[in-house]
């Protein structure tokens, strides 16, 4: 699959997929409740709110209260989804998530929209770039980051179906649609999007589309890249990663997130224990975001297909040494 800017690739929003799936869940599960913090439309819980007003709570600009109210609702037997921008959902609520939600393994689903640089002109304050790491280190937490609209729907259903806390990262901007309505999905299982044996490009979220495009670029140079979509950063699919390391002998990870503590770190943690191979990390290198258009920022921060392709060549060099 070739995904290039300017070509007629269908693009849709993952937050929209989440919102649609949430309304569907509402129909099937009377105990699903939804809370937001004055960003109903931006995180697309408006569909659920319109259909199930009595199961919807707009808490106002009060994320910490929202998180603990959701904890209480889960103690009263509900499946509680809280949804706001990723930076507030994660960092603002961190103590509540850690000590109240995760410690007691409560059925609270934390949805962080506007993840990553694609949040765009609002700037650093609104671009969540550390939440995959922050959530990943919490016991009992599961962390998902869908690569497209359809996967966001599936991840939303999986979140509801899996007991305990879960974090779902969504993005503001439309991103390429890579999967279809009936693609399979298992929480914790990665997806091989493209076969290849020279290098494995392990990506999540919007970076899956960039990795696929990088693989096409590499193919022109005679390099056969495998592309793996890790939609669940925790629990991570160790088996698939170890197989990729064994088959390809070199790995590039790509995430719209700080390189520290996110997907790349999670992959490295698996591989250093069992099958260390040369690795390169594409991500934000220990800096804050800034204002700009979403894709402009991906380019500025070196998160594009071209960057992945160069990293792939570099890591292949290292494997030959």
């Amino acid at each position, binding site marked *: 699959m070739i995904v290039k800017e300017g070509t007629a690739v269908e693009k849709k929003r993952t937050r929209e997929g989440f919102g649609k799936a949430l309304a569907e869940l509402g129909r099937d599960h009377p105990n699903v409740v939804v809370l937001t913090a004055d960003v109903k439309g931006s995180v697309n819980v408006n569909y659920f709110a319109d259909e199930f007003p009595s199961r919807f709570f707009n808490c106002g600009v009060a994320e910490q209260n929202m998180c603990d109210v959701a904890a209480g609702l889960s103690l009263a037997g509900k499946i509680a989804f809280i949804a706001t921008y990723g930076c507030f959902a994660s960092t603002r609520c961190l103590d509540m998530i850690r000590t109240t939600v995760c410690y007691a393994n409560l059925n609270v689903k934390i949805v962080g929209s506007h993840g990553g640089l694609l949040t765009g002109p609002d700037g650093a*304050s609104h671009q969540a770039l550390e939440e995959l790491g922050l959530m990943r280190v919490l016991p009992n937490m599961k962390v998902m980051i869908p690569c497209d609209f359809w996967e966001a729907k599936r991840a939303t259903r999986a979140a509801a179906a899996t007991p305990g806390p879960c974090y779902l990262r969504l993005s503001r901007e439309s991103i390429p649609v890579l999967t279809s309505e009936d693609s399979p999905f298992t929480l914790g299982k990665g997806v091989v999007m493209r076969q290849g044996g020279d290098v494995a490009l392990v990506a999540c979220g919007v970076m899956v589309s960039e990795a696929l495009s990088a693989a096409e670029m590499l193919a022109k140079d005679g390099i056969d890249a495998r592309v793996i979509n890790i939609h669940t950063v925790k629990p991570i699919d160790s088996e698939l990663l170890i197989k990729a390391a064994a088959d390809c002998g070199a790995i590039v990870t790509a995430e719209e997130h700080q390189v520290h503590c996110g997907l790349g770190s999670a992959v490295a943690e698996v591989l250093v224990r069992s099958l260390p191979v040369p690795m390169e990390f594409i991500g934000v290198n220990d800096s804050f975001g800034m204002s700009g258009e979403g894709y402009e920022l991906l380019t500025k921060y070196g998160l594009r297909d071209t960057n992945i392709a160069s990293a792939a060549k570099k890591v292949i060099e290292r494997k030959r040494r």
Partner: protein
Amino acid sequence: MLVEAKSGHTGGPLSCTDFATTLYFNVLNHDPKNPKHPDRDYVVYSIGHVTPVNYSLLAECGYFPLRDLMTFRKLGTHLQGHPSYLDTPGVEASTGSLGQGLSISLGIALGLRMDGKPNRVYCIMGDAEHQEGATWEAVMAAANFKVDNLCAVLDLNNAQIDGRMEEIMNIHPIADKYRAFRWNVIEIDGHDVLQILDAYRRAMSTKGSPTVIIAHTKMGRGVSFMEGDYKWHGNPPSPEQGEKALSELGTTYGIWSKRLRES
């Protein structure tokens, strides 16, 4: 600048314009050519998203050229979507995450008091961030520490992102709440310049407690098709709407462009 940026917040900045302009031009002790002047008064925008009024005033005062406003929110600009302490002269704190500005202001006020300095601290607040628990921690602490060099200005425009504040999560009776916390409370029409000036003066002469000026304002003030409509919280006007808005505010895009070019 909002038309040019194609994103950003319009309604809130317009409700703040009258009291914020009065603050910069009639009240503040500051030196735009020396933004870190040790004798300056501080302004902290707890509502980071009102950068259009924040940056416009800084530019009008001379902290940086007016033409910079046209780079707002674009790649490489020093005028970030939300205030960035390290990027923009005159910005005293990085904000954008609501409900933190009053605590920051309190810290500055305490620091100034420790040093025996007369500088004052102004904190621009929104109504909806009074839904954040952190705001009330700061309200309690400021009264407890009796900081009278701190003046909060509350833009009470009854609007937030999802609707009318009173309908989403009512913060009223807000004046009584501040009084119960032992603040000096001054309620004014936030678009009446004489009342605004008088309020700042009364705040300055208050001893032993912090002051909150509760400014009753209108979202989108001065632009007929924006006034009172919460939907203008986070949207920029189209070029046509921008032209119409400017003409209602007594200027034109042409006059503006000329000023920018000459700046």
